[in-house]
């Protein structure tokens, strides 16, 4: 498996990097950590590249290298990578320009597979889309954005599972909240959820929410299957069938001390574009990390 962790700054991306690396470790996945810098106007591309190349003559780093350096230091400090050959220092000379708007360096992983540090420039959705396609990414991990459109675009247009890290605090005791229904993505969400729960030693709350008081047999069967799956996996769990409004119940149950895992909606992209979807609303409204499995 391969994970992509998008980071933006030292100040705000700490929780995203920490949670992302811990989850990647749980899956024993290869990891790419990407920093996406601002889009450069087409009128100025060559001029900006010329200025950035000139900075190298002064041994000054371009925008974003300091953020990758900080990520590198985090990886060394937490023993995610072997860094003996570089003496624990981030060597910017090893950043290889692979495209006009992309450069990368690969590091040997210790607790995960290979770790790549990538610097990109441009529209963030376009750049993440390109990176996901280029490296066959399974899960993209990113910090929460205040822009509603951003979460929509991530879930709608990025062809991988999306983990939105919102309000994560390493000192808080978390539980895992699994949203279970009859949708095809639920089974994959359960598998992902179990891996995360095992790695973080979390209790799992598998919740099935119905709009009406009468539970459809599909929902009941899904809940039973989840119960069986979690029991076989040996995870401490509870299974609940509740009725009410999906979003308000999820929000209420999750609070700020759950990690939500749920399958992506199977509605048509056109419908999702105009009317939204449950995963999108969960990511927007809930005040905790949420993994949307595709």
């Amino acid at each position, binding site marked *: 498996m391969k994970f992509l962790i998008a980071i933006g700054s030292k100040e705000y991306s700490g929780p995203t990097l920490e949670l992302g690396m811990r989850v990647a470790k749980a899956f024993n996945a290869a990891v790419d950590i990407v920093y996406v810098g601002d889009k450069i106007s*087409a*009128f100025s591309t*060559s*001029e900006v590249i*010329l200025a950035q190349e*000139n900075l190298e003559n002064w041994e000054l780093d371009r925008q974003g290298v300091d953020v990758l350096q900080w990520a590198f230091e985090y990886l060394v400090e937490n023993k995610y990578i072997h860094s003996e050959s570089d003496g624990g220092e981030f060597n910017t000379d090893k950043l290889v320009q692979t495209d006009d708007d992309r450069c990368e360096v690969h590091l040997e992983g210790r607790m995960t597979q290979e770790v790549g540090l990538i610097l990109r420039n441009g529209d963030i959705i376009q750049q993440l889309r390109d990176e996901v396609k280029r490296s066959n990414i399974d899960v993209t991990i990113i910090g929460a954005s205040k822009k509603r459109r951003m979460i929509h675009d991530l879930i709608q247009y990025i062809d991988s599972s999306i983990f939105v890290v919102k309000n994560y605090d390493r000192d808080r005791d978390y539980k895992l909240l699994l949203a279970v229904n009859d949708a095809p993505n639920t089974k994959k969400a359960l598998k992902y959820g179990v891996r995360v729960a095992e790695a973080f030693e979390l209790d799992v709350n598998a919740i099935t929410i119905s709009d009406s008081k009468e539970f459809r047999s599909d929902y009941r069967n899904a809940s039973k299957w989840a119960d069986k799956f979690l029991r076989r996996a040996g995870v401490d769990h509870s299974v609940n069938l509740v009725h009410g409004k999906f979003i308000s119940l999820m929000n209420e149950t999750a609070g700020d001390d759950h990690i939500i895992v749920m399958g992506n909606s199977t509605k048509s992209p*056109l419908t999702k574009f105009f009317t939204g979807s449950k995963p999108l609303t969960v990511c927007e409204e809930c005040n905790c990390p949420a993994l949307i499995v595709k």
Partner: protein
Amino acid sequence: MLGFSNQTIADLLYWVTRKKWLIAAFAISIFLFYIPSPETLSPEGHRTLIIVVIALILIIGEVIPLPAVAILILILEVVFGIDTPNGVATSFMSDAVFFIMGSLMMAVAIVSQGLDKRLALGIIKLTGNKTWRIVFGFVAISSILSSFIGEHTVAAMMLPVALTLIRNTSDDQKAVHRLSTILLFSIAYGCAMGSIGTPSGGGRNVIMIGYISEFGLGNISYLEWIKYAYPMLLLEIPIAVALLWMTFKPEQRILDSAVRKLKVKVTKAGEMTGNQMMAIGIFILVFLGWVFLSPYLGLGIVALIGVFLYLSFGLIEWQDINRNTNWGVILLFGAAISLGIQMKETGAAEWVATQSINGMSMVIDDLGFMQWFISVFLTGILTNFLSNAATVAVLGPVVLDMGGNPIILGISTSIASAFAYLTIVASPTCMIIHSSGLVKSSDYLKAGWKLFVISIILLFLISNLYWPYLS
């Protein structure tokens, strides 16, 4: 849905959301194509204006690559029957395009010589370690240098000097935010202000000189332009310094340790090398060529002679020039100039000029002021969203068809296109300082709007009180 997978529909939706301006451009152009031409506008003029609308939307939206916009302009000029293929090809290549090509190539050659370290030493020797003196030095040196060698060349050379000072002051970006902002804006605004000083300061100046000459409205020599524009440049330097200082009062008033570290760093560069002296010598030759030979050879050909010399003396490799020259921009400026010429020839420029004056006559009585205001204000606004050279290429023919003194209106327009202070995308220099990651987009407006307004007032005073004595 219709047998398409969800992934295909999602990809299609993504394309539509990202290309909405492309779709809008074509929808608007189809609508404009089928509405009848106004009585006072020829059908060719009508179709030329449709191309202008499409080009503006596509350039501002940046939804397709710039070379694609350039190619589309040329195709539509022929397909719409505005000119013959040979006519379009002739209008596409001009001395102004040669100049833009030559100056972009020379920028690569000059920046790669490592002269910036000498420049840094020179500035620090002049200014000492007081922050306000350094800011003054940055604005003044950036302005004066960019008036001769082009703004982005100077910005690329000055950026490392500023960043070295900032990083030697503190590693904590928050602690030096205002210092970073004032130093970086000193470069960006200094370069923008300087680019008005001589014709070689920016491609747009050469485009305007080309239009004035091509439309038979007069000839402006290199030195004549300096007489018109340089006083404005010199007056703007202290104004810009004062505005920047009042807007971003830096945390550190003295940069003692940072200046010392910078001196140590640049002193390591050693004595000036033979190549550096040769590079300066070639540029002096090019400058003399612009002053004395451009009436016979053209500014563009003189710039290309400079490139030829840099390449022939081995001061730069062709691969480096090829890699760092924005060929897409050159194509686009060629196409924009071609479009400007078609606007003039089809009467579209005159029609837009007349409509603008009629529209504004309800608000302003004085015809002379109205002509000046429309050209300067419209150019000033458009240049902050479009490239300044593209702005002049498109608006130039309109301005020159407004009546009044074409030299005053033409130079005013060209100077106003340098008032690119308000947005990141306004000019390559704004983009270069933004790429450092140390200035926020809101910072551009903070000082930019004040400088924008003061520049317009200053231009009004100079063009009314000083320029009439030159004609």
